[in-house]
């Protein structure tokens, strides 16, 4: 029996990992150069509680469940996760009923610990918050993680359990005979498979149509962000009252101690349109300042945009289809990241394994995270350098990343400058790669046995340099 998963974002990676628990050959296909380079790479990185979603939706069901899986999942995979808690803030009295509505909705969805707090209580915990607030909904189960790290770790763990990973390979057609899946054809070749899971993110509609399904279009909804450097004394995720279109512009303390502001919510036409705009960035500034008035934008280190896979129905596609063997985990807009672990378990164990009577095999749930010197005590770091002097050579001064960590990231699958950045945080700091890009470039070239001109920033057509100054 062979199973194919299309898309190595956080959803596909977790599904592939669960499939490896059974007696199957599991293949995971990704069109990008690395795992987690699509929707997973640019979003709010929040593990939501589940009060934003209407009862009865798949979003509500899988969000609350997924949230509960996070601590154990991140512990097994060695991925950062922090329960920060969150406030939805009401800035005037008219918004208080909205908090009550969210509270009731959350309780109906089974979200634990929700309560409406008064201004003093909120300001005691979050002194930087706008003093004009009149009340806030407190949700203790909200947390933050690193979505790309979760996708990478899930894939690494799956590789230990027998996964076959195909990067930079694009699915072109899906072969269906007599209503059953027979396999997929990529730009490389044909792979026979009885089970195919569509976790193609923004492109899940195209993949579903390859199988002959009539599905609604997935439309990208762009979200622009600004990242501010450093600890600013904000502990919880801060939300404004939501609109029908989005959860609004948030203030998010990231796992590595920075502050993420955003996102906007703009419908765009192009599934690769991650441009930021003057208006969008202005909206982020203003929205964030409504929640925290004295944000210091001179500490901005980056602006970027991500895309949410939206559909008219605004709900996930999860489960079997009329084609035997073809399953969906698509249209994963927010809270897709939170829902992913629950969706992976449901789809693999309750749907696929049951339908195909799969038998379990020996499975190792753990992935040993790579060493990270910034998290070690001086004594531990000293010991690590004695074992391997490359951990004593610092490459990124902003985030204290060593050559040893970069080499390990490459050993685990990093192929690009961005891949190194997402795995090690080198280049993620205040100087944004000014001091380390050339070192990363040379280490990548050396470790991969390539020329410097063959090293890419993020995609096939994004070289850093064009070659030697004098050929």
């Amino acid at each position, binding site marked *: 029996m062979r199973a194919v998963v299309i898309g190595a974002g956080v959803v596909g990676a977790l599904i592939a990992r669960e499939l490896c628990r059974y007696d199957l050959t599991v293949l995971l296909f990704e069109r990008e150069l690395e795992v987690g380079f699509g929707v997973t790479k640019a979003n709010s990185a929040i593990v939501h509680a589940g009060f934003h979603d209407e009862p009865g939706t798949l979003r509500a069901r899988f969000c609350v469940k997924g949230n509960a899986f996070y601590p154990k999942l991140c512990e097994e995979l060695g991925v950062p996760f922090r329960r920060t808690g969150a406030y939805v803030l009401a800035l005037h009295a008219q918004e208080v009923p909205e908090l009550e509505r969210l509270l009731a909705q959350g309780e109906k969805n089974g979200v634990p610990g929700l309560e409406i707090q008064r201004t003093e209580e909120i300001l005691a915990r979050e002194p930087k918050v706008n003093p004009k607030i009149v009340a806030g909904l407190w949700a203790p189960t909200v947390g933050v993680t690193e979505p790309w790290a979760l996708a990478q770790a899930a894939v690494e763990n799956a590789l230990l359990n027998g996964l076959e990973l195909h990067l930079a390979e694009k699915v072109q057609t899906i072969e269906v005979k007599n209503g059953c899946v027979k396999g997929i054809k990529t730009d490389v070749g044909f792979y026979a498979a009885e089970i195919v899971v569509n976790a193609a993110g923004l492109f899940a509609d195209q993949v579903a149509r390859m199988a002959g399904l009539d599905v609604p279009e997935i439309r990208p909804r762009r979200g622009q962000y600004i990242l501010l450097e450093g600890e600013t004394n904000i502990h919880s995720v801060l939300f404004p009252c939501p609109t029908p279109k989005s959860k609004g512009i948030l203030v998010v303390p990231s796992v590595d101690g920075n502050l993420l502001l955003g996102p906007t919510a703009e419908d765009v036409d192009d599934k690769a349109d991650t441009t930021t705009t*003057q208006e969008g960035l202005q909206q982020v500034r203003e929205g964030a300042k409504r929640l925290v008035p004295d944000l210091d934008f001179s500490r*901005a*280190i980056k*602006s970027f945009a991500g895309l949410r896979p939206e559909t008219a129905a605004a709900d996930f596609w999860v489960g079997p289809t009329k084609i035997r063997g073809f399953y969906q985990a698509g249209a994963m807009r927010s809270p897709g990241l939170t829902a992913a672990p629950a969706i992976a378990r449901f789809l693999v164990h309750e749907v696929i394994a049951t339908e195909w009577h799969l038998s379990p095999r020996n499975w190792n749930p753990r992935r040993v995270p790579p060493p990270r010197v910034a998290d070690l005590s001086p004594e531990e770091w000293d010991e690590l350098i004695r074992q391997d002097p490359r951990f*004593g050579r610092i490459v990124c*001064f902003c985030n204290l990343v060593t050559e040893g960590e970069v080499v390990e990231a490459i050993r685990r699958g990093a192929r690009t400058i961005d891949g190194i950045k997402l795995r090690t945080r080198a280049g993620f700091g205040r100087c944004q790669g*000014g001091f380390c890009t050339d070192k990363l470039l040379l280490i990548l070239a050396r470790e991969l046995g390539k020329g410097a001109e063959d090293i890419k920033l993020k995609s096939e057509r994004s070289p850093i340099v064009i070659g*030697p*100054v004098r050929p």
Partner: protein
Amino acid sequence: MIKVWKVEVAVVGGGAAGMAAAAAAAREGASVLLLERNTCLGGVLDQCIHPGFGLHRYKEELTGPEFAFRLHTELEKARVEVAFSHTVINVNPQKPEILAVGPNGLVRVQAKAVVWACGAWERPLGHLLIPGTRPAGIFTAGLAQRLVNIHGLLPGRRVLILGSGDIGLIMARRFHLEGAEVVGVAEIKPFPGGLLRNVRQCLEDYGIPLFLRTTVSEIHGRDRLTGVTLVEVDEQGKTIPGTERFIKVDTLVLSVGLIPEIRLLEGFLSCDHVQRGPRVNSFWQTEHPWLFVVGNALVVFDLVDTVAAVGEEAGRFAARFACGEMQGEPCVPLKRGQNVAALVPQAFIPGEPARLFLRVIRPFPKARVKISPVYSKVHLGLRPAEMVEIRLSSEATAELQRCSEATVEVHPQ
């Protein structure tokens, strides 16, 4: 067990400032350890292969590496111990003790005085919040310079430089000489940010255009840069609608400012909000008397000769402090007045000679620089790119003691 090294003066950073400080401290008779994160000395001088250095200090024109070599020779003569490939990762806020990481493990350096000479870092694209895409092909000028001059790699073929700081101007010429096409240098201000000699020798001599009051308003290209939108700005720096033009380039080089590298000190030092370096007195001491800061880690200087001179001075004071010949002295604050941008030091020691460095906020063909009541002088051709140096005698600083503070002002004439 983490190794412990004991020394009288620890100097962090082996660029021009650090080398000069270390050599001077050793000549004063102190035991000196210089910690350098790279495998060789010279700091940024190593990648500055163009001439123009040393005219003041050595009375001849040298390249960056040649200038570094001269200082290196001074170091060797003075018997300074150098720990290469050692990066400082922590500074104790209470006492002169630093933690460094090197290829053989961690080292705790226990000193009596510390000279911080870590240079500056370049403002990256991310700080500017320019709309558009995030493609490959965008480099800070220093990174581009390292790629070309140290690694022999060419970043791109059609280049726009954003910002007319000195490194940007130097890189415009470098790219041109390496066969790339430099479409121009865009500067948001109405005057160039770099030295006039660099505008002449790097742009005018090669016919590279300088677009003043112009900035980049959008970045294009999904994978690799395909072009930028240039836009003109008005007196207030606001973009003028309708002046946008698309320029096809595969490389954007940023020269939009340097920021003192004092990350490890930020938690326990008060900083100057203008230049973002620490506040020091005329002995180059911070509020923690054992901690001295010099070079671009203090304020971005215009000339390496000045950096070396100040480093040398601080090295001597650090040695005296380490030997107990000097304490934390009472200071009189020095305030920034009209038309003054960067300013160091921010306090002086009454009865001791002092050297002040300042930059003006905009060009003044003729202006009076005043520190009432001890200094008043007309200067010609003041430009933000060039530092103004003022020397105050011990008599002048003694006289200022009667005032509770002094202010430096620039008045256009």
